């Protein structure tokens, strides 16, 4: 199928983009990598009157460090492509969780074009970046007609394709706190075919202390209407009780039941990957992902 008719503009600054969105109201939508939006247009699932292309706005791209020694932050511009996020030297060094997630996002040609801001703004519950933002305690930086605001990932993802973004607002960057020296992380995803959306996935961060794990954040994806922090499972795991953590998931996740994968299967798979991630986080820091992590 072909896209319906629409107008297109490619403003050269964030202010110009915001002005266009304000002027055209609900008729206008931002266009980032287009890897979800153009699909929706081609399938006629969406019929906006105006696409405001964010690709010519330099201030929205790039990975940089902010915040000094203590409380350091890595800031990733919203228009940074999936591939450039995962391969940036700063990300590989400071945020290895994101580098491990990258190969699981779609296929190379889609990673070359899709953006982290687009993924976060779309909030597909089966996708990697939103879960990584949640696990890593990131903040979503948003600009609208008013002042810039920062929304913690915990509050940003509110439901199926639903976020704290107001109409006319643009995600400008994601800010990730840099983990300390004792930090550990884990990433695991199961999908039908490499690059497909996750049946179930887990992005996790924490700290290793005196043989145990603490400050765990276990962000599951593909198992509810949004990425979910499994707090009870984290508490059990911090107490050294893996079986208890796995059992706790039944009360914390609400997996979809679809014709190909039953809810019970997804829940079982969530327990399996929790076991794998817990073993890796206990065993060592910054470990590479399984054989999938090509």
């Amino acid at each position: 199928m072909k896209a319906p008719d629409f107008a297109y503009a490619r403003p050269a600054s964030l202010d110009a983009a915001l002005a266009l969105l304000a002027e055209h109201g609900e008729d206008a939508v931002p266009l980032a990598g287009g890897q979800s939006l153009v699909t929706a247009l081609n399938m006629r699932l969406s019929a906006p009157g105006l696409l405001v292309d964010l690709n010519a706005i330099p201030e929205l791209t790039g990975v940089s460090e902010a915040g000094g020694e203590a409380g350091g932050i890595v800031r990733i511009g919203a228009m940074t492509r999936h591939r450039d996020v995962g391969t940036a030297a700063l990300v590989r060094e400071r945020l290895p969780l994101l580098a491990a997630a990258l190969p699981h996002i779609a296929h190379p040609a889609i990673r070359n074009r899709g953006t982290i801001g687009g993924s976060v703004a779309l909030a597909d519950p089966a996708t990697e970046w939103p879960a990584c933002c949640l696990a890593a305690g990131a903040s979503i930086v948003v600009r609208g007609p008013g002042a810039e605001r920062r929304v913690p990932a915990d509050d940003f993802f509110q439901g199926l394709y639903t976020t704290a973004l107001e109409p006319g607002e643009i995600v400008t960057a994601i800010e990730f706190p840099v983990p300390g020296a004792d930090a550990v992380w884990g990433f695991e995803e199961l999908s039908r075919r490499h690059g497909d959306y996750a049946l179930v996935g887990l992005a996790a961060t924490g700290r290793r202390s005196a043989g145990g794990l603490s400050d765990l954040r276990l962000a599951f994806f593909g198992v509810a209407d949004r990425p979910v922090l499994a707090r009870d499972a984290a508490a059990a795991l911090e107490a050294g009780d893996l079986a208890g953590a796995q059992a706790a998931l039944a009360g914390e996740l609400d997996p979809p039941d679809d014709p190909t994968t039953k809810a019970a299967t997804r829940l079982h798979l969530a327990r399996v990957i929790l076991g794998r991630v817990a073993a890796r986080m206990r065993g060592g820091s910054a470990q590479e992902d399984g054989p999938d992590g090509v």
Partner: protein
Amino acid sequence: MASENPDRAHAVAFTLNGEAVRAHVPARMHLGDLLRQSFGLTGVHLGCEHGVCGACTILVDGRAVRSCLMLGVQADGATVETVEGLTESGRIRDLQDAFHARNALQCGYCTPGMLVTAAELLDDADAATSREAIRAAIAGNYCRCTGYHAIVDAIASTAEARGQGRRDAGRDAGLEAAE
């Protein structure tokens, strides 16, 4: 930049297979259709038009992208290469020969996308080219005919031949320096 103002069609200028080109393109037309309809580049195959099959994959500014998920107007200022350009420049001749030799194509519908995806992988000096890595790289390209085994064989043998070439060159240089 004319496209700063909202419009249903825009003038674009870009580099296509090494030549400067211009077009006037409706905003709703994706790049795959622009390349086929305005420039006759029918090597750009369209299968699903929603990013899943990979048949429409081309290079934009050196990177593989789905031409069905990029708008024609977005090509303004870019460098675009299709399988025709890659063929004419000879850049993927070894890969094309390997596809032929290994029986990695039958109807050929998926082939342009497979070649472009493989071309990017083979050009990336840091990329792993194990069979597993090749399978991961082409997982986004559907083939109905040959099965993937022959395609993986063709890409793997090209990688090996290119790697061998580089190693030989290195060894020769080393020998020369030692002599």
